[in-house]
């Protein structure tokens, strides 16, 4: 979601320019839905640190000196130990209420659902040991693992799953985005709107079997179930203390939350009984009060720190003492873009939009202004994302062709005829967010002669105006909620989608998107999405800028197997420490 994305995006940007900690900032940004999002914000609190994104293992950042960065484990693995991270206070620990990356990062370690995402970013079983799909792809029957237990030792039953889904969809729970994540289940809409007391599409078959019926054969349904809104909670503990149960949550995840001092620390301890294999670490400490991650890292107070642009200059120097601890990863599953309202002149002419696309030299901005912390975006889907196809053709920098297209547009080459353009961005939260935008604006002026006005608004106002589609042009980002192209293309470009902020409306695209929703053959489905992506790029309601997210972080040599992933997934159980 955009916001989220925004969040992320901001964070990423933020971190690009500052190294500080501003954890809370990330929080702010994360109003959106967020799923397993990456950027985490949370992660480090601010910008700083976040390690979130990035793909799996470190590809030695120190390309410069050709040395693999990861801590080459010279030390002996330790049993147990405590990993310390800088984090920020999560707005909620109730999985059904989560919308932000910060909360999600902790929640996925403490709770679980029927399915989860593994470190290869594939949907795999969690509490379920397996499932059958029948009824032409509409009926999912999950079998729950016999060894799946809550932290207090109670076995997880099908009734627990059913109760959790009922709770998440109960209007009184006020779960954000529940219709997005669970709305495919038959009867959820009626339940959310208060027309039904129970979800008709959920049926407990026996103690360990549950059957879920969805409205159409949507193969991305399983991916949606990995989101915390579908997580399983313990009815007894929730009902015993409906307001405060999540202070001492009884989850099913690899870690138990043994201590939570609001605004100070969270301590997660190993769940010895975890059904997918207990964590190697004994404890994880999350510092919530903030601080400057870089300093804390250098003073050995934390084990992992995100690296901002300003520090990067220093750390990339091969002679710097911390150079060997620097990791580089792929960007998160998120994209930063400029949206253009296709109903607003002069942006109502595709030629103008294409010209604006062609007149921006993304590569130069990415490398020089953003210090290579982002990857210039050619298409819409991020690299590595399911359905990503490198052959879609976006816009390379071509000022000559841009000028030519502008002259061919209905406004002609005479700049006098072109109505004024204003671009709006959300408040900066102190980050120098406008820097890259300023460069973009200057490129337009230089290459096309179009002068664009810049307008920043405060965040809450921005959100409202965005949803009301009041902007002519806006700068925002989008981050993946679950690994499926539907999450980008359908949500952002389907004409009736509430997140289609550009008013883009192409019947051909709509028809293809509808077709893709129920296509069960994955190859065919992805090829439809590739077709959609190409049409959208040609129509140019967007100027895709870059895939963002934190790409660099510092990890202490004693920390092994710390993975950076472009989605928020449970990953701390793989980490171990050495005596290094």
């Amino acid at each position: 979601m955009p916001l989220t994305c925004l969040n992320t995006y901001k964070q990423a940007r933020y971190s690009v320019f500052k190294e500080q900690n501003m954890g809370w900032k990330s929080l702010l940004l994360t109003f959106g839905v967020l799923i397993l999002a990456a950027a985490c914000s949370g992660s480090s609190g601010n910008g700083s640190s976040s390690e979130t994104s990035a793909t799996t293992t470190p590809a030695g950042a120190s390309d410069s000196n050709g040395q693999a960065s990861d801590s080459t484990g010279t030390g002996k693995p330790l049993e147990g130990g405590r990993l310390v991270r800088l984090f920020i206070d999560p707005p909620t620990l109730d999985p059904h209420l989560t919308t932000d990356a910060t909360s999600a990062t902790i929640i996925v370690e403490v709770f679980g659902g029927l399915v989860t995402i593994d470190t290869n970013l594939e949907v795999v079983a969690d509490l379920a040991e397996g499932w059958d799909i029948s009824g032409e792809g509409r009926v999912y029957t999950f079998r729950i693992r016999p060894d799946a237990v809550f932290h207090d030792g109670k076995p997880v039953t099908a009734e627990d799953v059913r109760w959790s889904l009922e709770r998440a969809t109960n209007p009184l729970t006020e779960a954000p985005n529940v219709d997005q994540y669970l709305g495919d289940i038959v009867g959820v809409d009626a339940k959310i709107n208060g027309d039904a007391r129970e979800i008709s599409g959920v049926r407990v078959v026996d103690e360990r079997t549950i059957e879920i019926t969805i409205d159409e054969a949507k193969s991305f349904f399983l991916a949606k179930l990995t989101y915390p809104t579908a997580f399983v909670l313990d009815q007894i503990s929730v009902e015993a203390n409906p307001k405060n149960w999540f202070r001492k949550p009884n989850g099913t995840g690899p870690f138990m939350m043994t201590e939570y001092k609001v605004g100070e620390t969270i301590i997660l301890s190993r769940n010895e009984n975890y059904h997918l294999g207990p964590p190697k670490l004994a404890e994880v400490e999350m510092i919530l009060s903030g601080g400057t991650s870089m300093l804390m890292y250098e003073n050995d107070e934390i084990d992992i720190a995100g690296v901002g642009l300003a520090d990067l200059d220093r750390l990339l120097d091969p002679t710097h003492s911390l150079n060997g601890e620097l990791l580089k990863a792929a960007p998160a599953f998120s994209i930063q873009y400029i949206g253009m309202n296709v109903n607003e002149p002069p942006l109502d002419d595709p030629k103008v939009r294409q010209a604006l696309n062609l007149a921006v030299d993304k590569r130069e901005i990415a490398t020089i202004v953003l210090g290579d912390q982002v990857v210039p975006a050619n298409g819409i889907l991020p690299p590595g994302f399911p359905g990503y196809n490198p052959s879609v053709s976006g816009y390379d920098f071509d000022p000559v062709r841009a000028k030519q297209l502008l002259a061919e547009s209905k406004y002609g080459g005479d700049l006098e005829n072109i109505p004024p353009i204003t671009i709006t961005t959300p408040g900066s939260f102190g980050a120098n967010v406008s820097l890259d935008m300023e460069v973009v604006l200057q490129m337009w002026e230089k290459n096309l002669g179009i002068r664009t006005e810049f307008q920043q608004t405060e965040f809450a106002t921005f959100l409202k105006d965005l949803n009301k589609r009041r902007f002519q042009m806006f700068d925002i980002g989008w981050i993946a909620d679950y690994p499926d192209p539907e999450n980008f293309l359908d949500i952002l470009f389907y004409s009736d989608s509430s997140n289609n902020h550009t008013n883009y409306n192409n019947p051909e695209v709509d028809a293809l998107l509808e077709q893709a929703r129920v296509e069960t053959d994955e190859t065919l489905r992805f090829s439809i999405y590739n077709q959609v992506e190409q049409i959208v790029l040609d129509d140019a309601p967007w100027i895709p800028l870059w895939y963002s997210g934190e790409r660099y972080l510092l990890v202490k040599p004693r920390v092994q197997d710390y993975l950076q992933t472009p989605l928020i997934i449970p990953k701390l159980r793989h980490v171990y420490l050495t005596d290094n």
Partner: protein
Amino acid sequence: MGTYIVQRLVWLPIILLIISFITFALGRFGPGDPVEILMGQYADEQVVERVREQRGLNDNIFVQYGRYLNNVAHGDFGESFKYRGRTVSELLRNKMWVSAQLNIAALLLSVSIGIPLGLFAASKQGTSWDIGTVAMTLLGQSIPIFLTAPVLLIVFALKLDILPTHGWGGFFDTRIILPAVAMGVPGIAIITRLTRAATLEVISQDYVRTARAKGLPESIVQRRHILRNALIPVVTMLGFSVAGLFFTSFIVERFFGIPGMGSLFIEAIFARDFPIINAVIIIVTTMFVMINLIVDLIYPLLDPRIRLGGAYAS
């Protein structure tokens, strides 16, 4: 004096009512919608509307306000919109206490350095000692915290490695030192100047001249008249700073990792978390009015020439 206090106290509830109503109304009619932020990006209009209805946000504003006041009267400030499931009192209690401690530490620092400097400058009035002292403190006041905080951290936490980089451990913990210095230095200038001015004024007063002429030892003159007088600026300063007593700036919090009020309040503003905003405003306003009243009551004790309702009282 009695009537004066009563008068001031009568104003208090009126002021609070007006302010809280303004804040409350801004929350309902101002730009930005907390429910929209709360329910996330996918939420459609219908869902947002339902939640609004559920939370009673569609009722008549006076009904809502009445309900709110009733709750507040019972000590219930409600539940945060953003930090779901947490009450406002819980969120505020610890953070206000942290901010208050840090502010007091900073104030103590300003006072303990500022008063001696002010007395010293006054005793050397007109010399380059005087000018130099005042200029030094002014310099401290003129440098923004954006520079002092990083420099303090780099020097004491990183290079010398004698103080921790972040965190909070209460009033008697080394972690309070750097933030208190960063916050306290600008205040030194104010205290120094006020002390100097007050002292100079007293020195020229008839009763001090008389005391000296009577042959009272200089130390007694100083203790009895000059020092007592120098307390006035401290009290004044206290009155001014008290509005911020339960606040630390989010900038200080950010640099030093302090779980104080500043960040919470800014977050609340961004998220339009009105239960928190309303509560903060009511609490801070009450404190401000009360402490100003106390300050006014202290003045006559320090300086018999001041009478209530007069120049210093407001």
